């Protein structure tokens, strides 16, 4: 009785092994059977690459919720200024033909990784992270501090260096912003920074930090903010015309 049971187990094991071997050998063979007709269908059928929208701007008012950001004069906090500045920018950008996406419209506390995720999914032509400070003077425009000559990452793109591929575009974007703000007679500084989530963005990105214009003009000054917002819209319009990535890069899935 014991021998009989053992024989059954051995036979069952052999059957399973034979079946799995057959399955493994048949799997690689499947692609070798060429389609007998309509060969062109397989050659020409590249996945439809949706045209990257050239008019989407992502605004990320930094801080919010239980993260107030910097303390500013007149009992203001950074999160209020960045949100107000985003609200000021939106209609100006819309009137220039841009579609504006914001990471948050309410006083919400979003982790920087989540903000980067929203920005990366927006497929924006430019991502602007808005900040405000009481240190320094004028407007600070920061791009990622990742090295310029870093090798282009392959898929999957590491999260910490996701900005590498877009860095040349980001530097042109920052330069356009700098030129427009300079023409508006606003003092500017072009800097490099690792402020999150700059390094994690796949879109051309810059952080715009409003600092007091001078001793008498704090960052909460509405005239100053309006002047800066108009110059930023001018810069983005110029960037879209001259420097934005091509509308439909052939074969480059986005």
């Amino acid at each position, binding site marked *: 009785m014991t021998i009989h049971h053992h024989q059954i187990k051995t036979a069952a094991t052999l059957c399973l092994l034979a079946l799995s071997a057959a399955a493994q050998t048949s799997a690689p063979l499947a692609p070798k059977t060429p389609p007998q007709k309509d060969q062109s269908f397989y050659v020409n059928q590249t996945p439809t690459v949706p045209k990257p929208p050239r008019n989407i701007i992502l605004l990320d008012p930094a801080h919010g919720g239980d993260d107030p950001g910097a303390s500013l004069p007149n009992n203001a906090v950074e999160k209020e200024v960045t949100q107000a500045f985003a609200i000021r920018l939106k209609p100006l950008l819309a009137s220039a033909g841009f579609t504006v996406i914001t990471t948050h419209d309410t006083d919400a506390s979003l982790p920087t990784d989540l903000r980067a995720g929203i920005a990366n999914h927006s497929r924006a032509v430019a991502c602007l992270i808005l900040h405000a400070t009481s240190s320094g003077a004028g407007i600070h425009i920061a791009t990622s501090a990742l090295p310029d000559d870093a090798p282009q990452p392959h898929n999957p793109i590491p999260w910490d260096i996701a900005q590498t591929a877009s860095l040349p575009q980001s530097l042109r974007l920052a*330069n356009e912003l700098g030129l427009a703000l*300079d023409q508006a007679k606003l003092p500017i500084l072009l800097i490099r920074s*690792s402020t999150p989530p700059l390094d994690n963005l796949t879109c051309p990105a810059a952080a715009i*930090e409003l600092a007091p214009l001078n001793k008498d003009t704090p960052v909460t000054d509405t005239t100053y903010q309006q002047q800066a917002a108009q110059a930023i819209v001018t810069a983005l319009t110029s960037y879209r015309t001259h420097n934005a990535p091509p509308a439909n890069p052939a074969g480059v899935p986005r």
Partner: protein
Amino acid sequence: MIPRYQRVLFWILIGGIALMAAFLLHGCQQAHKRLTAFNDATPIAAPTPATTEDVTLYLASDADGSITATSSQVALPQDPSIRARILLDHLIAQYALPTSAHPLQPGSAVDDVFLLKNQAVVNLRGSFTDNHPSGVLVEDLTLQSIIGTLHAALPQITEIRFLVDGEPHDTLAGHANLQRTYPATDTTFKPTPPSEEATQQ
């Protein structure tokens, strides 16, 4: 006439009091011995005179966003780790001066500097990060100033990481990333103005 049982009780109580007093005295003596055992009466090492030496400080300026290398004289010990900590405290002390172009609160900024094989781990004090001005530029300048100064003093170091009170921290004061490892390089920097040429590149 006092009854006999009351006299016996009296002497028993007196004996109990004497016993408890003896027990208390013994306990006090034991506690005193334990406490005095902790007092290390060994004299501390006599201070040795240290000569001042030239160091390079990478000083930041908020007005133009620059980092400039400047020579300074400071007395430093020989131990590399303590040397790095004192050097950074000397650097931050420059920013507490009334004439500083990158004003920071006075006070000790660095708790420790741990030197590993080719990496320096700077353990900042929580009081320093709590009182640091908040902003993209101002925080980045502080980090670049520390990195440049450490690189000049310890050229063998290739990477620098930051902790706050011994723990990893997200940002310095809400902006500059403290989670990443920074390359130890010469951080001398002067922002370039925007140009039409850069737009055409």
